[in-house]
């Protein structure tokens, strides 16, 4: 049972507190927490569960905002973490972004949302669709209205019908002039290539994102032509387990609007679309770096937004890097980012330069890892293909759209 939720800005200021139970949590706990963050650095920020002298703290960080929840008793820690993620998602959705100013400007909405989402430290309504019906998101109309008339209520005065229905994720009476449903396969490629250039691991993490605008309560089935390649799956609550267990078919009543239908993973892929070849040669206190990027296996579509990022080792005093294509940036924390975008036809993009090492160091003995991000539109590298999407009851006109996209996930090349 959570006792309190705090929202902290990236400077450690408590922007908002919401007490949830009778066990009042003083906000001095935030001061303690922030002291720890300052003294232990970022490693604490990535720790979701922290035991303070008085409370157990759960935290997630989104958009510079720390969501901190406290409890004093045993509870499933993932429940707290997952709930905070949900809060962050909902706020992100409502405020169209997540930063300190947005939270402060809309603090009343944040309070109202929190009050609806959690009751007595236990999650109450977390389904975004229903929340939207209970508390209207701020939009241009309401803003203008509030400027003009000075009053507007964003609190709905009726209980959403879905709270009572057996499909709590869907609002009951939806009407559209055009029925349409879009299915996107959004994939991320994770790969590890070690310093000999061998592929250690290559897999795809993908999500099926659906955006549905259909009148009434539609019942859809989605099937893949090669579902056997899926290694792991997780489903939105709307997906029925039985058809998947028996026939590997997704049968569901979709929520209204955009949602993540399922996430999946395809493991043990053999080829990567891009190669990155880093080379280091050291001599007498300096090190020469040379990185080449090119296409290894052409996926058949344009690869764009290629960026190579790496962290210079702390023993590097200064770096002088140039590239024959694209833009190189070195940030103050010794992170280098080389944005290439598209690989030109006539040359191979290459980055070269010299690194000056600390005095006393003859040669470089630690080497950075290169992270590559890219985007390929129109193709799902896992090879997953959607077979068909059928509504159980066919409305007059249903427009169906399918898209695919692959991005670089944690795509790493060690050197």
């Amino acid at each position, binding site marked *: 049972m959570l006792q309190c939720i705090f929202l902290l800005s990236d400077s450690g200021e408590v922007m908002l507190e919401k007490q949830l139970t009778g066990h009042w949590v003083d906000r001095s706990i935030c001061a303690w927490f922030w002291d720890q963050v300052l003294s232990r650095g970022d490693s604490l920020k990535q720790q979701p569960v922290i035991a303070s002298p008085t409370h157990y703290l759960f935290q997630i960080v989104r958009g510079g905002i720390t969501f901190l929840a406290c409890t004093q008793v045993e509870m499933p*820690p993932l429940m707290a973490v997952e709930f905070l993620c949900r809060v962050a998602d909902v706020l992100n959705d409502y405020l169209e972004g997540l*930063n300190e100013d947005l939270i402060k*400007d809309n603090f009343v909405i944040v309070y109202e949302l929190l009050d609806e989402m959690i009751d007595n430290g*236990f999650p109450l309504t977390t389904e975004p669709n229903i929340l939207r019906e*209970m508390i209207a998101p701020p939009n241009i109309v309401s803003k203008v209205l509030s400027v003009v008339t000075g009053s507007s209520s964003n*609190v709905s005065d009726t209980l959403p019908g879905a*709270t009572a229905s057996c499909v709590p994720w869907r609002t009951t009476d939806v009407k559209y002039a055009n029925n349409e449903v879009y299915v996107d396969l959004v994939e991320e490629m994770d790969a590890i290539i070690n310093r000999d250039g061998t592929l250690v691991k290559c897999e795809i993490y993908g999500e099926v994102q659906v955006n549905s605008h259909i009148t009434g309560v539609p019942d859809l089935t989605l099937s893949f032509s090669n579902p056997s390649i899926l290694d792991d799956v997780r489903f939105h609550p709307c997906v029925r387990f039985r058809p998947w267990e028996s026939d590997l078919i997704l049968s569901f009543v979709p929520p209204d609007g955009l949602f993540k239908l399922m996430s999946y993973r395809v493991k043990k892929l053999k080829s990567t679309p891009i190669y990155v070849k880093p080379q280091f040669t050291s001599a007498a206190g300096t090190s020469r770096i040379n990185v080449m990027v090119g296409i290894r296996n052409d996926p058949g579509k344009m690869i764009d937004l290629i960026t190579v990022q790496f962290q210079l080792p702390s023993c590097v005093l200064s770096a002088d890097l140039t590239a024959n294509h694209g833009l190189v940036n070195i940030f103050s924390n010794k992170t280098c980012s080389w944005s290439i975008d598209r690989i030109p036809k006539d040359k191979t993009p290459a980055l070269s330069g010299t690194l000056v090492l600390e005095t006393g160091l003859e040669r470089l003995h630690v080497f950075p890892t290169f992270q590559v*991000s890219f985007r390929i539109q129109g193709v799902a590298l896992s090879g997953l293909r959607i077979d068909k999407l059928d509504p159980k009851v066919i409305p007059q006109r249903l427009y169906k759209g399918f898209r695919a996209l692959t991005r670089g996930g944690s795509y*790493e090349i060690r050197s």
Partner: protein
Amino acid sequence: MFPQFGATADTLSKASTIVSRIGTDAHLYDDPEDVNIAPLLESKFDSEKCEALKRLLALIAQGFDVSNFFPQVVKNVASQSLEVKKLVYLYLLHYAQKRPNEALLSINSFQKDLGDSNPLVRAWALRTMAGIRLHEIAPIVLAAVSKCARDPSAYVRKCAANALPKLHDLRLEEHSSTIEEMIGMLLCDKSCGVVGAAASAFTSVCSNNYSLIGKNYRRLCEILPDVEEWGQISLIGILLRYVIARHGLVKESIMYSIRGEESCWPKKDDSDVDFALLKNISDMTVNYDVGLASMVSRCYIEGPDEYLSWLSSSGKSYAEQSGATFTSGRSNDDVKILLQCTSPLLWSNNSAVVLAAAGVHWIMGPMENVKRIVKPLLFLLRSSSASQNVVLCNIQVFAKAIPFLFAPYFEEFFIVSSDSYEIKSLKLEILCSIATDASIPLIFKEFQDYIRDPDRKFAAHAVAAIGLCAERLPKMANVFLEGLLALTRQETLTSDFEHGEGDVLVQAIASIKSIVNQDPPSHEKVVIQLVRSLDAVKLSAARATIIWMMGEYSNLGEIMPRILTTVLKFLAWRFTSEALETKLQILNTTMKVLADSKGEDLLTLRKVGSYVLELAECDMNYDIRDRARFLKNLLSFKLYSQGPEENVNISSGRLPHVLAEHIFRQQTSQLTREPVNHRFYLPGSLSQIVLHAAPGYEPLPKACSLLHDGQLQNETCGTDLLGDGADGSATSSGSLDEESVTSDYGSEQSSTVLSDSGSSDETGSVSEGDDNADQLIQISDAGYSHNNKSMDQSSTAMDLGELMSNRALESWLDEQPGSSNQGKSDQNLFLGSSARIFIKDIASRLKPKCYSLLDPANGNGLKVDYSFSSKNSSISPKYVRIEVTFKNCSTETISEVSLMEDSSKVSDSTESSLSSPTDVSMLAPMEEITSLEPGETTYRPIHVCFHHHLLPLKLALYYNGKKYPVKLKPDIGYFVKPLPMGVEAFMDNEARLRGMFEYVRSCTFTDHIEELNKDRSDVLMKDNFLLVCESLALKMLSNANLFLVSVESPIAANLDDASGLCLRFSCEILSSSLPSLITITAEGKCSEALNLSVKVNCEETVFGLNLLNRIVNFLT
């Protein structure tokens, strides 16, 4: 998905926020106090009120205390605008506990809202009302919750379920059974959302009341996939605990490995895991991990106390100790259905649900199916990054207990640069424990990559991991050793000590040490190589380790003894420039070698030794000085004896010699593995993450602990509607059946006379004439036999016989008009006299409850107990008379004992607001006890006026000139006085107090069972039925100051059937002189627990509810 904010994007978004701030509440947050808030709150317009409330909310958000606006805000609670309401509620909940008095002002409005037609309004009102958390309104809230629990709207019912833990938080023991009852009801709700909320209420209110689950276990399992995700988490835990409490652990599961039997390891025909690999691993695991696995399972079942006691008596086998009971997962339906219904949840989108479901399979799943949790858990690592850390912590335990589960998936634990330090080290640890001969080459390759990572701390961890892997897989040790030596060479050259980069080197040498330790003879060269590099290794920790190895393996092979003297000379020469730990090791090693040496080396070593000792004795550090002195004394025979031969001859038998032998010569025994020194906690629990038992952590229930209770429960309540699984434990008729049975007995038909022995024959004949033929014979038989029994009885039967039902008597009288007049007068006389006799008689057996006011341990030997008296106070009817016993348990005389009001606390008592404001003192002055001799006991009656019938009264006890604060707990049963009345008067009053003045609760009564069993042996056996009446009446009268109006009972078909038994009591509330009527109706068999339905009719709502709760409380 991966927002990468460039510098430009940032400024752009700043610019855009300025635009977007128009029309938001930004100005309210920035400057909440730029206008006067108070007048806005009083405004007529909702919009202005809203603005004021928003400003207050902004102040709350920023941490200011604005509770001084409370009264003005509370007034707005009645507003019709929902937005105002919502904002007021937000404010109210934040401050209600700080301003309880003002918060009470809002109750009326909530109660009005509870009747609103809009479910949203009802739900909000209930949530807020329950959220205020004041003791005073607990009964009202309880009533509201029970009303809302039957609300047509599922949302309101869900809020009702959520409100129950809030009530439970107030720790009102009177209400706990009502709350549990309600949870049971909500668990049966038809809406899945409500069931989920009820499940979480169950977890926080009564997580051990498994009878509530037993009722509809099967249904709960079946709807589990449809319950909303948060409820699923709680429900999974509940179901798991229930199954274990009911059936015990599963024979095929990992928990069975407690027995250490190899049969539980997977069969060879396992399809998914590679055969050869599995064989390898299982060979290894059988030898290696059964201990750990049983440790894990033991930790799951045992609470901290047992764990500690087990640690201290580690000899006994666990299975013997606990006699853990096992069931078969294949044949037990309950287990099967649980596993079946939780397995699709492994695909859930909520990581907490996945982990909870995985926990069920881990504990209950048959060994060969446990692997189905592996992939979903691993997928969590990728798909929800926030929960990665927690999931890894859990995987770590799983992987340690059964490494082969995760062994094929070692790639999942390869480290990526975005991992945080904690995650990296967790992954390394898991990799170490799951590495197999097949996968280690790949893992080793990864480790080599990690060593080159810029994060040196992590690189050091990787090196340490290599050492650990070598311990587990000795086959690979040589490969590792080569790599480590190469690393050592490289690191000695390049490492830069300023940035703590030496960690890698230190770890490398530590890892080498542990590998060498496994098989010293074959690694002689390695030691020599390290010793040679001593010159180059600058890090003190690394040097110390190398020097230790030199001493440890000093007589290994050929070369070592030869170079030893030279190296020691060199070290002695460098001694002063070394760091602390190195110095200590030089000392140790020199002495160790010295103790060992013979022949010509001895002289040289002796010189070196005494030189080092001399230096050490003058060292700045006391540790080194102490060590030097100790070693000097210990080895004096070696250091200063004249010649080698003499030394051997003389000192071999002497103590220092033996000591030295033991200290230095014994080879350190192989520490195969560091002992597991921390506890394991249930998978998915907070305690497992923080590695200590968090408050509220409970291990799994004792296997089959429910069996006994469960049977009792099933029999008494007849609750097991769904029937039972294969084990065929007791089932009985459903509660519905029982109800229908009892409803057959109308009151007219069943009312009978529990007559005294004199009239028993007549009664029998009366009922014969009265009823229809079929039942007649039976009834008369029953009546007859029972009368026979009561005839046999002597005086006890006499007074019990006088518990005569008025109405039954009347009906009898009507039948025999001839004797009616006499009968009536008799009856009146009889009732009048019998009441007195009865009470007097019973009174001798009444055991008024004695409470302790001050126990001798706290009160320096003075023991003060008190009990409520049924006598009325002589001072004023509003006062309660309490008998206080003072006993001197000390050896000295106690003087001037007196009891007074605690004046300091009285004035600010916030609770006084509800009760009528009174300026009378609460405690009538007590006669002072001038002195109390040792062992002496004195009684004093005191007269107390409680302001509130639930809250304790703070008093001060003075004696020997000192003040001791004490608390007098009120007993609502004595806030009434007996109100003698006849049955007609009772009926009249009852008819007047129907509807909202009537409260009913049910409970079970078991006191008489004990009584029955006790009496079985007696020859003069009392009648069961009378005994039930007697024990019920006794129980009531010894716990509350009541008047017994009547006892009525039906002619039951069965002698043993107490259904329809009805006791009536009346009393008058002291403070208001209002009558209060209590009716108890029993149901069930005499020899078993009775279901009682207790009804209270009282004009004072709150008092009545509390009284009812108190009665139910002491009856059960």
